[in-house]
């Protein structure tokens, strides 16, 4: 037997669920599963609390059965846990959104460092041609439920509200300010504006989009106030004055 054959065979025994195995192999099997369950529990603490331990463990076991770990770091194992949640609980968007929040905050926590633009240091630019650069830690997602409110309440050890659908689809964003991962709910207009601006970067076209929705005066004013808020929130890492 070659080394490669031995290792692929050991992998198969490690991941199988046979009951009667030698004591040594049983320890490796237990280590394997407990590491993966532990990773998911650590990655999704609020989701675990929201679901309760038995249900969370059931989803974790399903995930482990469906997805073998492949990343160089164990931390990556929980990245696609949301897909398993969707399969196990297809009709619970609150759970999917809660999982997204926790995964996005974890990504933001270790995202590439970037120096934010400081409002007082913004140079005069031709705003029609200006392009915005956003922090690499920023993640955006649509929100159909109040999962962000649930997350905030649980994070603050407060009683979490009942989950419910939002009156209108909105958004949520996760990013990092300094070394702190942050979460914010976004109203539909801001979510649309931020999604557009991050994808396009072009401030003039952001103004055009808002003018089309709010009219000339209110649209321009809204673009200005959003930009000021984004700078103040350390979302902007560059304003480039070119086409």
């Amino acid at each position, binding site marked *: *037997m*070659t*080394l*490669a054959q*031995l*290792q*692929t065979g*050991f*992998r198969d025994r*490690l991941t199988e669920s046979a009951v009667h195995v*030698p*004591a*040594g*192999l*049983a*320890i*490796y099997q237990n*280590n*394997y599963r407990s*590491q*993966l369950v532990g*990773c998911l529990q650590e990655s999704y603490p609020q989701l675990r609390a929201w679901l309760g331990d038995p249900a969370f463990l059931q989803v974790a076991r399903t995930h482990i059965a469906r997805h*073998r*770990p*492949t*990343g*160089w*770091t*164990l931390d990556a*194992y929980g990245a696609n846990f949301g897909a398993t949640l969707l399969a196990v609980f297809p009709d619970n968007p609150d759970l999917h959104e809660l999982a997204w929040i926790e995964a996005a905050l974890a990504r*933001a*926590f*270790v*995202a*590439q*460092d*970037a120096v934010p633009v400081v409002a007082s240091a913004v140079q005069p630019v031709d705003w029609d041609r200006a392009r915005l650069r956003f922090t*690499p*830690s920023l993640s955006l997602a649509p929100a159909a439920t109040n999962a962000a409110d649930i997350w905030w309440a649980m994070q603050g050890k407060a009683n979490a509200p009942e989950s419910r659908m939002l009156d209108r689809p909105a958004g949520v964003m996760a990013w*990092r300010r300094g*070394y702190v991962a942050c979460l914010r709910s976004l109203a539909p207009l801001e979510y649309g504006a931020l999604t557009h601006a991050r994808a396009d970067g072009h401030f003039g076209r952001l103004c055009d989009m808002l003018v089309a929705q709010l009219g000339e005066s209110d649209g321009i004013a809204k673009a200005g106030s959003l930009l000021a808020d984004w700078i103040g929130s350390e979302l902007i890492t560059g304003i480039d004055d070119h086409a």
Partner: protein
Amino acid sequence: MQAFEPPAAFQGYGLGLRREHYQDFLAAPVAVDFVEVISENFMVDGGQPRHILRQIRERHAVALHGVSMSIGSADGLRHDYLARLKLLAREIDPLFVSDHLSWSRIAGFNSHDLLPLPYTEEALACVCRNIDTAQDVLGRAMLFENPSSYLAFDGADMTEWEFIGEMSRRTGCGLLLDVNNIVVSASNNGFDIDDFLDGIPFDRVRQIHLAGHAPGNGLLIDTHDAPVPDSVWAVYAKARARCGPVATMIERDANIPALPALLAELDTARSQGVRA
């Protein structure tokens, strides 16, 4: 391929630095000569982990200890992993870069556990090939740690200590001797600890780990969740008597006590080192 020799020796006493003690180390001087961190925890793009490590590095010598290189993988090493480790080592300028004599990954699957190798000529050639690759990429000699194991494969061509000695001789890597792992593996696999110690080339040992274990499933399990037991201190005394200058540390990964308790254990290691 570059030729390497084990890294320069460092005489001192340190701790495995874990999250629970970051603030202790940042708030006031701690009486250690070095700290060891888990490399993968800091092989991230940015954020607080790297920030904390930079601050720690301003105060202490740092050893980088990996758990995911998978030096025994039959299908070689991950170059994205090596590239991240190289970047981290370049920034931290570590005392040592180490990992385990084990494997975790095969055919895209990563067990995230330190799995045992068969002590065969083929495995030795594979391990040495992978160490050559890693050391070439990193531009420095690494240390490799004897693993704890819960089973042994049939058909071995050599003992664990013969494998380790030959690995170090062929590649120029240094050795990280985990005394607890010797005790655990000897008990589980039925070898004589003195035979192990007699077979280790101590002139290539640069670091020593001390930790605790627990019984389970009829075997000893490398739990790192308890104080260093007498059985490990006894083997440490024997190992220490054979070492030249060496970096000795307490490695605690679970049930982590307040820092003074670990420093007290380190004092025990220090006093044994003085006697040796």
